[in-house]
């Protein structure tokens, strides 16, 4: 208690020395990964996995609390000077000796962050980190038989599990367009050789999409297995239906990557989530006016886009800048100027 109080005093004094900045503003210059700093990580290496996927080795800051196999982490990366946040599964085992963690990223078409990480990220770069999270994890008690059902980059959380925990009887069914698109292929085949894994690769370019009914033939005892499935929504929907129809839905655990599809339209339903009001807006009326009309207390300023007095958090959806036509999509921490932005589809302003 006294030591906490003392530390509090000392910190107060330090704040007086650095005012109006905070001591951390100076400490960040020398030690951005120290304990007590905002959580960050440093990219230490980028290893290509396939033509469009790479594993990023990250040294997390001292505040990193560690993860459970199967979890994901949100990272903030500066792409073309703009900080963008995305979630990626952790692919490293939890007991890695050097304390580093890895994520494995597949570059998706037009994906700003994924392309940047796979093709342009360089060792030494600082990134922002959140603590790891997610319930797509293994249970405390080891199941006797395990099935991993994955497709594309859906293999990443499962790889984290495979590397972390050994089971006596593990089967994996993995879908990818072609053999060379299979991420971690060498490592998977090494596991197969060591008899630690039975693997079926479905090459969708030649075999077509996986018909879930084929599981009976690929993994005859699938219904007895504790199953972790991760991949595109189509596969997961089919799996959930299949497991339910056979009366074993409790054996299936799925992980859906957050769909980031925002349909930018012209106007839409605007929610002011702090006030709890929802109104319809057209694509030409500034959101500031929309809010004021609806009786929401909106901060305002010059009303012409020059003073930034009206900036408000965009929690969901998309807005259009009325001056440039540029679309801004919601992401954590995104603030928009309500006086020069209009609804581009349904959106949520935190006011």
């Amino acid at each position: 208690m006294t030591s906490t109080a003392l530390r509090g005093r000392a910190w107060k004094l330090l704040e007086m020395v650095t005012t109006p900045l905070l001591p951390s503003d100076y400490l960040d210059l020398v030690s951005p990964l120290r304990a007590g700093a905002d959580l960050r990580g440093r990219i230490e290496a980028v290893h290509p996995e396939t033509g469009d996927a790479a594993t990023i080795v990250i040294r997390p800051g001292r505040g990193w609390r560690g993860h459970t196999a199967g979890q994901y982490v949100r990272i903030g990366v500066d792409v073309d000077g703009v900080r963008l946040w995305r979630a990626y599964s952790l692919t490293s085992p939890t007991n890695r000796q050097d304390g580093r963690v890895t994520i494995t990223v597949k570059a998706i078409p037009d994906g700003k962050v994924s392309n940047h990480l796979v093709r342009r990220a360089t060792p030494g770069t600082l990134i922002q980190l959140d603590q790891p999270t997610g319930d797509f994890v293994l249970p405390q008690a080891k199941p006797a038989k395990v099935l991993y059902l994955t497709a594309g980059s859906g293999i990443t959380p499962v790889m984290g599990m495979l590397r972390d925990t050994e089971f006596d009887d593990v089967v994996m069914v993995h879908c990818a367009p072609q053999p060379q698109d299979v991420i971690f292929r060498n490592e998977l085949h090494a596991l197969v050789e060591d008899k630690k894994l039975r693997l079926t690769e479905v090459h969708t370019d030649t075999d077509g999409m996986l018909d879930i009914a084929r599981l009976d033939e690929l993994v005859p005892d699938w219904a007895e297995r504790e199953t972790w499935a991760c991949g595109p929504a189509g596969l997961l929907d089919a799996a959930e239906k299949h497991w339910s129809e056979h009366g074993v839905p409790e054996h299936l655990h799925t992980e859906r990557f957050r769909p980031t599809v925002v349909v930018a339209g012209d106007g839409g339903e605007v929610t002011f989530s702090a006030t709890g009001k929802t109104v319809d807006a057209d694509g030409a009326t500034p959101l500031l006016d929309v809010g004021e009309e609806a009786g929401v207390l909106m901060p305002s300023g010059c009303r012409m886009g020059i003073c930034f007095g009206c900036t408000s958090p965009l929690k969901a959806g998309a807005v259009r800048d009325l001056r440039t036509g540029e679309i801004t999509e919601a992401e954590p921490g995104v603030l928009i100027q309500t006086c020069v932005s209009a609804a581009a589809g349904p959106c949520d302003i935190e006011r």
Partner: protein
Amino acid sequence: MTAIDPTAHLTAEQIEELGRELDAIRDEVIASRGEKDAAYIRKVISAQRKLELVSRGVLLFSFFPPAWLIGTAGLSVAKIMDNMEIGHNILHGQWDWMRDPKIHSTTWEWDHVSPSDQWKHSHNELHHKYTNVIGKDNDLGYGIMRVDEDQRWHPIHLGQPLWNFINACFFEYGIAAYDLELGKNLHKRRRKNPEFRARAKAVGRKIRKQVLKDYVIHPLLSGPSFLTTLAATFTANLVRNIWSHSVIMCGHFPEGVQVFERRSIKGETRGQWYLRQMMGSANISGSKAMHFMTGNLSHQIEHHLFPDLPSNRYAEVAVKVRALFEKYELEYVTGPLPKQVFSAWHKVFRLSLPNKKPKVKTPDREQELVAA
């Protein structure tokens, strides 16, 4: 408002075309904003912090005169960087596009007695929207000076060179008072307004913290150098104040800069707004170092046209803007710092005396446009 309207030769269509051309310049910069710009502001912030740390470190030994000199010079430059290239521009939202919460107009606080949010209101919202509109833009003479022949002269204006000098020395306090609109709010009835009292309290808090840091904590930490560190901080604040006052005076006060009447901005179009910014601002010419130390407010004209573009891009924008001035036969008011400072001060002195010339009345913009 001035005897001869220097934009009288432009038609309404030309003014709108000018607006479109300026929009295109703006769009081009926005489309090309990126990694280099972000790296620039981060580098400047990091350099400023390091310079301040080192200078304060040197001042611990300021009983030794060369250390005093070096520490004071370093601290003065650090304070100028903090206020000009960093604080002013971040608080304009110039770097908000980076989405870095640490370099954002909503979170930034600067080494200045005026709290960021109050300054943002009076500067970004009032000054930048109503640039040089008498009665609306209080930056014009900061509410304490006569800045145009058409304003009525009063014997109190005889003292304005003196007010202006005092204001220069204590500029940050002048700005805090100006943000509070003290002149208007000190009247008996307004003084008790709870909103005003809350704002005055916030300024009081900020002043207390700043004074405590500069004139108590740091001198105390210096131990035997207590007095010399105190003197050093006072000097650095003075240097920063006089420097920023001079730069800001050069932005709107030199001869050749236009002021406007309230009624002239009624129903103003985008093109007309741009034109008012062009005619109401003035630049300072000079080296890269000069532009940096003024926080790129040496490109005041470009800053007023595009207050939210990153400051490091004003230099390239200036070339295109200047070409537009020539194309539309407008006067681009610029000159070296000493010349512009002299010109601004000359005006302060000149207008402290009553006019020699009789007042000339000009038709206002709206009527002209209708006629055109």
